């Protein structure tokens, strides 16, 4: 193999927004008049990756990372520009997408393997490895519709990584299954990068980007804004996000209003790392509304799982106040959503107001990222 494994030249991708269908649109489309509102998911992207190298795509949500993966995997083609790929490609994008719920695990392994470009003989040869990696020996002859979502994802992941790909695309799938499986899938991808496969990874976890990849590209609003070594780009990305970015101020109960003023370390530093004391300052206002309402804080993983929860013991006073909270940051390195909300105690569904910020917690050890929380443990080594 000579020449680059992946070449993206001047690629742009346009999507149309809004729903299709309806007579109104039919008339419009046939007459070629005003088109629907368009969105350029990618604009003039250039990219080249040598065989055996690994590249990370980083950037905020909606930056075009997944669209770029779709172009590279040939799921769709660019509106303008070109994409060339040399070598068998396998993608870990929504693993198990080709599974048919009525078919058994065994039948689906063969079907999915064929969709991913393997011959029947190849699949048969690797079948035992695939099943063993997914740890589904007992359930392999059960229709996958009876699988739990974790089993489903494990089997899908296992087929995809056993296709012997020259090029592997990974889109945040290292977050499927339980922690143990996540670590094993991470190790499997790491092993593939060591075997000099070409790997493209989309990730929000900068620790993973640094460990898995040689190079990285930062995308923002469909454009490449930064290219360099994985470490350089990951650092740039963390700086761009630091200290936090407000995601949304939900308009809830108009009687309550929360503004996050500051998120930083208790000692004043702005870099957050696992184990630091974290300090959140916000402004809260209660006009009337429930007089039992209390302030709560939760740190949620990107998939929505709350990792840390804290509740203020005092109900909110009837005025504008500044609330400050400090707590040991036990969450593992990664990106999180920090929610500050007002709710009635004892009623889980009663949310009067909720605001959210993205928080990036640093930490260099990807082993820690496999956990959800880390604990300040006392070690005695004699």
């Amino acid at each position: 193999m000579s020449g680059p494994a992946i070449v993206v030249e001047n690629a742009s991708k346009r999507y149309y927004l809004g729903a299709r269908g309806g007579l109104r649109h039919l008339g419009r489309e046939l007459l070629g008049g005003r088109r629907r509102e368009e969105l350029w998911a990618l604009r003039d992207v250039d990219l080249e990756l040598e065989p055996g190298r690994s590249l990370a795509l980083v950037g905020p949500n909606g930056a075009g990372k997944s669209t770029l993966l779709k172009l590279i995997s040939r799921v769709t083609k660019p509106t303008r520009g070109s994409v060339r790929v040399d070598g068998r490609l396998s993608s870990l994008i929504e693993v198990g997408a080709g599974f048919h719920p009525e078919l058994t695990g065994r039948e689906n392994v063969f079907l999915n393997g064929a969709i991913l470009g393997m011959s029947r003989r190849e699949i048969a040869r690797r079948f035992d490895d695939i099943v063993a990696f997914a740890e589904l020996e007992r359930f392999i002859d059960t229709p996958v519709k009876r699988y739990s979502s974790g089993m489903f994802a494990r089997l899908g992941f296992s087929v995809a990584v056993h296709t012997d790909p020259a090029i592997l695309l990974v889109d945040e799938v290292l977050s499927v299954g339980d922690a143990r499986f996540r670590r094993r899938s991470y190790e499997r991808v790491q092993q593939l990068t060591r075997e000099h496969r070409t790997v493209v990874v989309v990730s929000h976890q900068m620790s993973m980007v640094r460990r898995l990849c040689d190079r990285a590209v930062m995308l923002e609003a469909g454009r490449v804004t930064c290219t360099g070594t994985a470490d350089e780009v990951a650092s740039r990305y963390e700086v761009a996000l630091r200290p936090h970015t407000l995601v949304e101020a939900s308009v809830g109960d108009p009687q309550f209003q929360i503004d996050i003023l500051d998120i930083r370390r208790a000692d004043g530093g702005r870099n957050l790392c696992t184990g630091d004391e974290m300090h959140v300052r916000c402004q809260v206002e209660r006009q009337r509304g429930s007089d039992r309402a209390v302030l709560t804080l939760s740190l949620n993983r990107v998939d929505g799982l709350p990792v840390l929860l804290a509740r203020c013991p005092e109900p909110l006073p009837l005025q504008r106040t500044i609330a400050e909270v400090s707590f040991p940051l036990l969450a593992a390195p990664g990106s999180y959503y920090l929610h500050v909300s007002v709710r009635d105690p004892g009623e889980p569904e009663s949310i009067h107001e909720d605001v959210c910020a993205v928080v990036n917690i640093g930490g260099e050890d990807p082993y820690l990222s496999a956990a959800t929380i880390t604990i300040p443990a006392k070690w005695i080594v004699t």
Partner: protein
Amino acid sequence: MPTSFSPVASQGLARFELLMAFVRREVGVRYKEAYVGVAWAVLQPLAYMVIFTLLFSRMGKLPGSGPLVAYVALVPWIYAAAAIGQSSQSVLGQLGIVSKIYFPRSVLPLSSILAAGLDALIAFVLQLVLMLALGVRLAPTLLLWPFLMLLTGAICLGVSLILAPAIVRFRDLRYIIPLGLQLLLLASPVGYPLDAVPRHLRGWYQLNPFAGLLESFRAIALGGHLPRLDHLLPAVVWAAGLMIVGGCFFRAQEATLADYV
């Protein structure tokens, strides 16, 4: 362990196996968890046969071997209707996979056409059994049956290569296609022989490729003679034209099918 095939050959093999995997999937899924299971593949044409026999023996208008006249044309017709119906929906039905994984998209319509062929094969075996039961001599021209089916399949594939991408963009076609198939049934000599069509309309009538084609199926099974060339010609022309137009259209559309989720 390197394979002994050249890259091109092994790629061709992988593509063929992908096609077979989709055929297996379609056939395997069809009767899963139905109590009678695969028996439906036999029961369906059997039921058609009984209905048509009752219907036409009452009307008593058909010359020749009674129920067989209808059944012999019914087998390819049911095949064509099923093949076009399923194949035109094949891309839309698999849009979930199409939007996530790349694979040669043409295996989708093709696998539906082939899967429907399996049912037709079962119906054909049933036809042979029926002919023996009714004491009809099995003519050697019956050996032409696979070739006529191939021609039928080519027409269906050509149509589906156009309809399958079109349906993804214009979902209205989902409701128009079954309607069109019903109309085509009325305009095809399934329930009646071609002779029943008034002579002055027959020129127009034979523009329908199924007119001569179904008549040819009757000729090889019941007449025991070769199909007439003027019966086959429209079907051959249609098949070639549709395959070329459909092939080009599908090629132009396949790269962006995933955008129409």
